[in-house]
């Protein structure tokens, strides 16, 4: 089995869960002897001279271990000095001429009100990916999230191979009801053009069926897995937090989707009846400023800690210090972070509006808007130690059963079913 896979980010160039998921999935596929050609845009700091570069497993793109069956192909980013929006159009024109009907779908994309970098990049990526795929041999095309759908469609058309699109998040998760029409259109087009759609949860599958008009039998659920790393002991060094204080952690992008304001409002309720507790918001995002202001307005500024975006060791360190992790997401297709927290022995409260709540039983669950219940549960964990102990022990065991290997196997099964019917 050979897969032409289209992604947008990959470790170590990560801004979110998508890269982590692609990494986990391809690594597991590698172990199953599935050949993967992974195609992604190169990031700003790369200085590749040519449009296409083959990276071997030992080069800096593969972060750990050896991936014998995965090769990476990167397409230089528009963020590089030579590329402008004009240049992109020129380039695309040439590409369109050079190609068969393959890129017709791309041309049909309507409004250009979204003329930022993302838009140009997405279509440029599509054109080049299709070009690049001509020299490769593969059985299926597998595209991750909307940025890669035009590319997926182009490659599938040019090669005549079945297309699978993998939904890690939808525009409705990211933007609520204020969807970006262009992004929605691309998502919809990708899903309808695909032979099979993979959703990361039933939560997301329902959105796909109800909001994008797909027939239910076309959409499969494949849950994400989690990488299991042993954690060394980390010394609790100098911090602003006393040992007699409990720590409740929010970790993630501070954006509308992640529900930071619900965390703050619940914190306020907790602090009304408890004193020896601090709330930490680790992460950054467009609502960061607003969150800081809101903490001040609620009068809990002295009990809130904003750490900004945390890297590697600092993340592990904050997990070591935390007594409880809270994910109050408004709409979370899957949600890997609570699994990470459990892997680090931190019990979790998760919103019911998340995919991970479908697979995690040993977690406390609340509706994201129910701040009374969120506060009730936060206090319960801090006040009744056996609760945290039981959640941690069972939760850790449960995350051990969520493996990328199973996700990869399920994908392979979907590929094979497609190849039989095609």
């Amino acid at each position, binding site marked *: 089995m050979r897969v032409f896979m289209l992604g947008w980010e990959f470790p170590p160039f990560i801004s979110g869960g998508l890269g982590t998921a692609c990494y986990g999935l391809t690594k597991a596929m590698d172990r199953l002897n599935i050949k993967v050609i992974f195609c992604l845009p190169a990031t700003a700091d790369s200085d590749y001279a040519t449009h296409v570069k083959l990276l071997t497993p030992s080069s800096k793109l593969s972060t750990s271990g050896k991936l014998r069956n995965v090769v990476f192909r990167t397409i230089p980013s528009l963020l590089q000095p030579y590329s402008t929006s004009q240049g992109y159009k020129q380039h695309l024109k040439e590409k369109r001429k050079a190609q068969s009907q393959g890129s017709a779908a791309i041309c049909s994309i309507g409004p250009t009100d979204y003329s930022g970098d993302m838009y140009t990049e997405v279509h440029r990526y599509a054109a080049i990916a299709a070009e690049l795929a001509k020299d490769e041999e593969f059985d299926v095309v597998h595209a991750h999230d909307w940025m890669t759908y035009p590319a997926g469609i182009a490659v599938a058309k040019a090669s005549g191979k079945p297309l699978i699109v993998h939904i890690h998040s939808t525009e409705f998760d990211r933007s609520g009801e204020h969807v970006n029409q262009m992004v929605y259109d691309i998502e919809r087009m990708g899903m309808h053009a695909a032979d099979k759609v993979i959703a990361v949860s039933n939560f997301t599958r329902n959105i796909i069926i109800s909001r994008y008009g797909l027939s239910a039998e076309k959409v499969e659920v494949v849950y994400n897995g989690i990488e299991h790393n042993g954690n060394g002991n980390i010394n609790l060094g100098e911090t602003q937090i006393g040992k007699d204080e409990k720590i409740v952690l929010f970790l993630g992008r501070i954006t509308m989707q992640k529900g930071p304001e619900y965390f703050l409002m619940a914190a306020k*309720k907790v602090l009304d*009846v408890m004193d020896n507790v601090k709330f930490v918001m680790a992460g950054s995002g467009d609502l960061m400023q607003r969150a800081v202001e809101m903490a001040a307005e609620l009068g809990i500024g002295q009990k809130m800690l904003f750490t900004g975006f945390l890297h590697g060791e600092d993340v592990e360190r904050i997990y070591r210090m935390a007594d409880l992790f809270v994910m109050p997401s408004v709409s979370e297709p899957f949600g890997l972070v609570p699994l990470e927290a459990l892997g680090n022995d931190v019990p979790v409260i998760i919103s019911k509006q998340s995919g991970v709540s479908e697979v995690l*039983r*040993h977690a*406390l*669950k609340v509706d994201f808007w129910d701040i*009374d*219940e969120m*506060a*009730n*549960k936060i*206090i*319960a964990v801090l*006040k*009744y*130690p*056996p*609760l945290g*102990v*039981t*959640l941690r*022990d*069972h939760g850790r065991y*449960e995350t051990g059963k969520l493996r990328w290997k199973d996700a990869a196997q399920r994908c392979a099964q979907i590929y094979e079913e497609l190849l039989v019917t095609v």
Partner: protein
Amino acid sequence: MASVCFYFQGHQPLRLRHYTVFDNGNRYFDDYKNAAICTKVANKCYLPANRLLLNLIKKYDGRFRIAYSLTGILLEQLQQYSPEVLSTFDALAETGCVEFLAETYYHSLSFLYSRDEFLEQVSKHMETIEYLFGQKPRIFRNTELIYNNDLAALIESTGKFDAIASEGADHILGFRSPNFVYRPKGCDKLKLLLKNYALSDDIAFRFSDRNWSQWPLTADKFAQWVSAVNGNGNVVNLFMDYETFGEHQWADTGIFDFMNHLPQEILKHPDNDFKTPSEVARSYEPVGTIDVPHLTSWADTERDVSAWLGNAMQSNAIHELYRLEKKIKNTSDEIIIADWRKLQISDHFYYMCTKYFADGDVHKYFNPYDSPYDSYINFMNVLHNLGSRCSARTAEPALCGLSQDKGRPGLQTQIGD
């Protein structure tokens, strides 16, 4: 001789209402839900089953005999929500063919945590049974058939009982059969009646299981299995939840028809009869001694107490509950004491079980909570409130301006008023 000894366990827990750390009212129970479930089960099970059994008793003119163990908590709820059920139980008692067993009034695990509390609850239950049905129970069954040597010794020492019922678990019987009367180790007079779990569970659990090789179970087939005991046993103890009829096994499975035909089929064999537990204890002498140093129960395949006390939350909740005993009783406040006792209902701890949580399973059907964690949080919030009521209660006399030199009895009278 093969005597069939039926004993039906009747119980409905009191479910707590959603109680957060921000609540501070002293109404802990979900009256609406408890009433709704009680009347539902009354209509699906208690009423039709009582009617059927009453008819059978009349039809067989004393040859069909049964026993019940009804928890105080069930009787209280029936009195409040479905009094017509109580009158049918009374009619059953009047026939003289129905025996009532003794147990803890609150369906509690008190034997494990407080012997005093345990004995008080047993007395309260016996008084209630005598008041309602005019019988002094002579047979004891502990909550969920939880049993060990110490329990048998304690029950014998009260001098009020002829026999005690327990699970005929393989690990306590070894090669021996449950179809005889035994003597608990360390007892001189008390007899031990062991549940024949294979035949009991054929009715209680497997009756409607279409994957079971013996499905469908008919009365004559079951009677043949019972008759096969003749020659190598005296008694077949069929102990099961009364809710088996119409609730665990719905009416459309044919469970009522099965029961309707069973006496006739059993009595076809000249050596078979029906006996109540007291009659079994009178009729047969022990054939050996049973040694049960560790706790057993009738729950799950493990037949142990892990469904109630298997994880850290359960153990913490129940220890905190019994730790309050002295404080609660010192208030002499009947309402506070009753609330505390209602929190002892074993179901509260069953809801916190994580054993089968991952697979769904039988535990799920009876659980009003989404998860064992939610049930623990709710219970602990209630317990904390109850604890604070005790503190408030003991502080009250000083606030009322009562002089401190008055002795405790005086205070208690004041509070009692």
